[in-house]
Structures are given as structure tokens and as C-alpha cells.
């Protein structure tokens, strides 16, 4: 089935280039969504099996694949609306949809791959697809954003490759040359610590470009800013999860070696710095879309803090990753409606949103409550568990500083969000506004409700999937 899925997605991508008819394009997109869901349901029924040697339907992969498929439906829907509302020519439209399909496929298969080199290959493909999405508008700024994204991602991909080379050196003593995570885990006691250390540093640094962590986070911010909002939603949620999978699967290997403590220190430093950097930018930033992107950096910083703290933090980290994907994509979908009304990204020119689009304003309000992890948001539960894990790991100073930084983030975020909702913008001519149907916001309500439900009352299967993903980690 994995092969059918890959070939099917590839044919659909080709189809976009062969025929640029509007109706055919939309039907191909619909066909892909059906394919995506068929594959997801198939994977649920074939839990714990391996296909084509390199793709395992394990718990972490399935959990994130399911998240991806859930986010993919509104992403396709909002892409359709986006393309309809903008004057597009057939060429840019077909490239956009082809890149979207490619991105979703590569991300999904990347989650499932059980071999570090295969994860690496699919991460490379996501860079290619994402760059086509970022360059969608063909403007000078879009080109700048694309260039920075491609260049930094190329360097980080190279870093991951160097990490894989060092990993293969560390494996030579084990008398095996199979770089699958399973084999690495089985031989974890025989891995050479020196090479393993170097390897972890390079692989971690490389994947931070996708995950959005210090040091390589900058490229992702520009990308999410310049990509069309529905594509930005994918970049800000599911693509970040791909970086998380890359790091987390390798972390499981490290966690079973004596290097666990050292790796935790490395991750902890990067994670804390990410929260710090996100705070600094959130206070200063005036571009709404970039503010949402920086909020993603903050959340990924918290996730990795949970991983570094260990214990209940592992559980919280995976829960947080899933919930964050739902909530953050919702924010970006809503952003596209905001932009349609104000035609501006600057906070100074956006305001009084309740008056112009009441349904959308309610989404923004709920999304703010969700992203800043206030109850009843599901993120509240995961963030609370992350704090508890920090407390149990006796990292009181880190905990207090993170809490202080988070307070500042909530203040900065809230200040801007409430300005958007209630304060009238300067020099805004509201005589000729587009009508926005309340139905467009319905997907966002579903996503937000889903995040609340999964956080407060998680189904048993969901909890079991998370518990199984972290089973191999030390208690």
C-alpha cells in the first residue's frame, strides 16, 4: 500500500503539470485527499507492520500521520478558497497544488520511515516542495524568503548527512552497517560514544531547521511569512512535526546509551534558548503572520524541554506536538481571512475584527486561548505536564525562567490579539469590504474543539499510542 500511495501521489503531481484545467486540478486535489485518507485508514488496520523494508506503521508514525491527514483536509479546502479568491494563472495554480500534494506525501511517508537515511531523503523532498509553495507569489520578497529557506535548509540537510556519516562510523564496532533505528537500538551498547556525540550534534542541528529551534529557526519564520496562509499552516504544524520525528527517533537510540544525560543538556539548552528567542521577537514583532510563526518556535521549545526533562515530559511532548499541530494550523487558516479583509500584515493596520468578521474573530479569540495554553485548551494539559516534568527533574531555575518568559509571551501575544479584535485600525477604509462566509471558519472550530477534546478527555487508543511511542525510553 505504501508503494501504491507513493506512486498514486506521484501520478497526481504529474497530473497537475500535464493538465492545467481548473476543474481537473480540483478533482485531482480531491482524489489525493481520498488517497491520503485511504492510506491513513489502511495504516491503522496494519498497525505494527513494516512495508517495503523502510516504512513501519509504528505508534509515533501513525499518531502523526493521523494528525497530518486531519490537517490536510482543511488545508486543501482553504487552498481551494485561496486560489479562487486570488487572480491566479493556470501555471502557478498547478505548481501550487503539485507542491502541496508533494509536501503532504513526503511529510507523511517521512513520519513512517524506520531508517534514518530514508527520513533524511523525505526531509529533502519537503524542502523542495516547500520552496515552490513559498515562491508562489513570484514577488521580490517571496524570492528573498525562498532563497533564505532553501539555502538554510540545504545547509541543515548537509548537516544531517554528516551526522549520518558519523553515525555509520560509530556503528563500525558493532559489526553491522544497517542504519535503521531498530538496529541502532539493538546495538546501542556497542556504539562508539565519540562518533555518536558528533553525530547527535550534527543531526540535531540539521533537523532544527524543520523543527524550528535555535540555531536554525530563522529560515522557517521567513517561509511561514511568505508562503500562502494555507501552505503556511502546513509548514507551521505538520512539517515541524517531521523535524520532531527525526530528532525524537534518534533520541530514543541515544537515550539507551550512557550519553543520555549529555544529550538532555544539549536539547535543554537549545530548547530554553528557543523559548527565550521567541519571547524577544514576540514582544517586538509587528507582522501578524511572523508573530504566529514565533509562537510556533516557543511551543517547540517547550516540547523539547519536556523531552530533555524526561519522565512524564516524554508523554507531554508528544501530546503537545499533536495538539499544537491542530491549533497552529487553525490560526494560519484564519489568518487568510484576516488578510482578505485588511490586505495588510502589520498589526497597526489590522483591528476591530469583531465588527468585520464576527465568526472569524471568535476563532481568533479561541485560538489565542488555545495557543497561550489557558484552560480549557488541550495545550494547557500538555504544558502543565511539561512543567511538572521539569519540576520532577529538579530543574527549578529553568522552570521559573521559562514561566517568566511565557508570561511575557502571553502578555505580548494578548496585547496584539486584543488590538486586532477590538481597537479600530488607523486609516482603514471599510466601505468596500469582501463578504466572508461564516462557513469558512467551520473547519477551524472543528480543529480547536478537537484539540480541547484530545487534551481534556483523551480516548484510550490515543493515550495508548502515545505511551507506546515512548515505551523504549528510560523511565
Amino acid at each position, binding site marked *: 500500500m505504501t508503494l501504491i500511495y507513493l506512486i498514486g501521489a506521484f501520478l497526481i503531481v504529474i497530473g497537475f503539470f500535464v493538465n492545467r484545467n481548473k476543474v481537473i486540478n480540483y478533482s485531482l486535489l480531491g482524489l489525493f485527499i481520498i488517497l491520503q485518507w485511504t492510506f491513513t485508514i489502511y495504516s491503522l488496520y496494519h498497525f505494527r507492520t513494516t512495508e517495503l523494508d523502510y516504512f513501519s506503521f509504528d505508534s509515533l508514525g501513525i499518531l502523526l500521520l493521523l494528525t497530518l491527514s486531519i490537517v490536510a483536509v482543511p488545508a486543501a479546502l482553504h487552498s481551494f478558497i485561496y486560489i479562487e479568491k486570488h487572480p491566479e494563472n493556470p501555471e502557478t495554480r498547478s505548481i501550487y497544488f503539485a507542491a502541496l500534494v508533494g509536501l503532504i506525501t513526503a511529510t507523511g511517508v517521512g513520519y513512517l520511515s524506520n531508517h534514518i537515511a530514508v527520513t533524511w531523503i523525505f526531509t529533502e523532498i519537503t524542502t523542495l516542495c516547500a520552496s515552490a509553495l513559498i515562491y508562489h507569489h513570484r514577488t521580490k520578497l517571496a*524570492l528573498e524568503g525562498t532563497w533564505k529557506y532553501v539555502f538554510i535548509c540545504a545547509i541543515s540537510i548537509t548537516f544531517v548527512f554528516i551526522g549520518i556519516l558519523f553515525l555509520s562510523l560509530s556503528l563500525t564496532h558493532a559489526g553491522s552497517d544497517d542504519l535503521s533505528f531498530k538496529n541502532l537500538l539493538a546495538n546501542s551498547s556497542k556504539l562508539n560514544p565519540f562518533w555518536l556525540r558528533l553525530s547527535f550534534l550534527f543531526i540535531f542541528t540539521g533537523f532544527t531547521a524543520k523543527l524550528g529551534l535555535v540555531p536554525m529557526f530563522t529560515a522557517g519564520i521567513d517561509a511561514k511569512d*511568505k508562503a500562502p496562509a494555507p501552505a503556511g499552516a502546513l509548514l507551521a504544524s505538520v512539517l515541524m512535526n517531521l523535524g520532531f520525528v527525526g530528532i525524537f527517533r534518534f533520541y530514543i537510540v541515544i537515550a539507551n546509551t550512557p550519553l543520555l544525560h549529555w544529550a538532555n543538556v544539549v536539547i535543554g539548552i537549545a530548547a530554553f534558548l528557543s523559548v527565550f528567542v521567541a519571547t524577544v521577537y514576540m514582544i517586538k514583532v509587528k507582522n501578524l503572520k511572523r508573530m504566529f510563526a514565533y509562537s510556533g518556535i516557543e511551543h517547540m521549545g517547550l516540547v523539547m524541554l519536556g523531552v530533555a526533562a524526561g519522565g512524564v515530559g516524554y508523554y507531554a511532548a508528544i501530546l503537545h506536538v499533536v495538539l499544537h499541530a491542530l491549533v497552529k494550523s487553525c490560526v494560519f487558516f484564519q489568518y487568510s481571512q484576516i488578510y482578505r479583509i485588511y490586505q495588510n500584515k502589520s498589526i497597526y493596520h489590522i483591528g476591530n475584527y469583531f465588527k468585520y468578521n464576527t465568526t472569524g474573530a471568535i476563532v481568533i479569540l479561541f485560538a489565542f486561548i488555545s495557543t497561550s495554553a489557558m484552560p480549557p485548551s488541550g495545550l494547557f494539559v500538555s504544558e502543565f505536564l511539561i512543567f511538572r516534568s521539569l519540576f520532577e527533574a529538579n530543574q527549578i531555575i529553568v522552570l521559573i525562567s521559562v514561566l517568566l518568559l511565557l508570561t511575557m509571551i502571553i502578555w505580548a501575544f494578548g496585547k496584539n490579539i486584543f488590538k486586532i479584535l477590538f481597537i479600530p485600525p488607523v486609516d482603514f477604509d471599510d466601505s468596500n469590504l469582501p463578504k466572508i462566509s461564516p462557513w469558512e471558519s467551520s473547519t477551524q472550530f472543528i480543529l480547536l474543539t478537537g484539540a480541547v477534546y484530545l487534551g481534556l478527555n483523551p480516548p484510550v487508543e490515543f493515550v495508548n499510542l502515545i505511551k507506546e511511542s515512548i515505551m523504549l525510553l528510560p523511565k
Partner: protein
Amino acid sequence: MIHVFLIIFLISLFYMAIANRMLTYVNILALQGVLLFFVVFFQLKEISTLNLVLILLETIVFKSLAVPLFLKYILKRNKITREAEPFLPHFVSLIIVTLIVVVTILLSNSIKDTNLDKIFFVVALSTLFTGLYFIASRRKIITHVMGYLIIENGVFVLSLAVGNEMPMLVNLGIMLDIFASVLILGIFLNKIGDVFKEVDVNQLTNLKDY
């Protein structure tokens, strides 16, 4: 024999640190491709012939012919000035590159692994850091691309060190080479040359937070 080529490779980095003209950079990249060709030829004795031919073709056709020719074409088409315009004087560059090499040699001395030929490690790691240094210290976007190509060459050397045991990794490295170079060079340098008239990193500062 391999060591001779690898040391010439290292020396080419020093030359690049003091080179002033863009064409010299391109020529050094082509030379590095040829050097890698010989290293591959002498190093990879245990892999299948077909795979070896593929790797050799990649070094000679891609690294030392296609990419340099394309870079020359871009230089000409976009009328990029001949000087490299570094932020730092050449002398300082030379010292920094020397320091990088010395530090990697010191680092390699701390390795107690008999499986690895240390010279591969030294050359690869110093090439990597020199490439990063070039990216940080040069003004033009095209020199950034060249810095990236240098990094790729360094990674290629490293992959050769384990090439006999795991030829798959060398092939992956080649894939990375071609993929990233085509993506960076082919699509964007063309576009960037059209949109930004003076191709300078100082022009890429419009994406701001406020």
C-alpha cells in the same frame, strides 16, 4: 597516493582564502572536482564497478565540468563584478582558515579509532568549516553558493572514508549534491539574477519583524 590528493585539496582551500577574482573561485572548484575524481579512483576499491563508474562520472562531469561552467555562465549573464569583495582582508582569511585546519588536526588527534583514516577526517571537517567561513565572510550571493559547494565537497570526502563499507552513503551524498545544487543553482540563482540587479546579500534584508 590518496594522501597527496587530499593534501592538494586542503591547499586549494588556502588558495581560495586569498583568491580575489570570482573566476579563480570557479577554477578551484573545478580543480577540487578533479582531485576528488582521483581520490575516489584510488580509495573505493571494494565496491562494484558500475557504482564506481557512477561516482567517478559524478565527480568529473558534475563537480568539475557542469557546475563550474554553469557558474561561469551565471557570472557572465548577471554581469557580476569580478572581485569577491570579502568583508575581511585576505590576510585575516588566510589566518582563519589556517586556524580551522590546526583545530581540526588537534581534534582528530583525540580520536582513538583505528577504523578511520584520520586524514579524511581532517580534510573533510576543515573543508566543512572553511565553507561555512566563506559563507559568513563574503558579500555576494554567488560566493555563498560557492561556499556551499565547498561544504558539499567536504562532505563527499567524509563519505569516501566509509565508502568501502557503505557505498549506499556515498550514493546518498551524490544525491544530496545533485539535488541541492540543482535546486540552489538552477532555479534560484537564475531568478535572483533577474529580480535583484546587484546580487549582494545586503539586498536580502527586506524580510523584517517590524
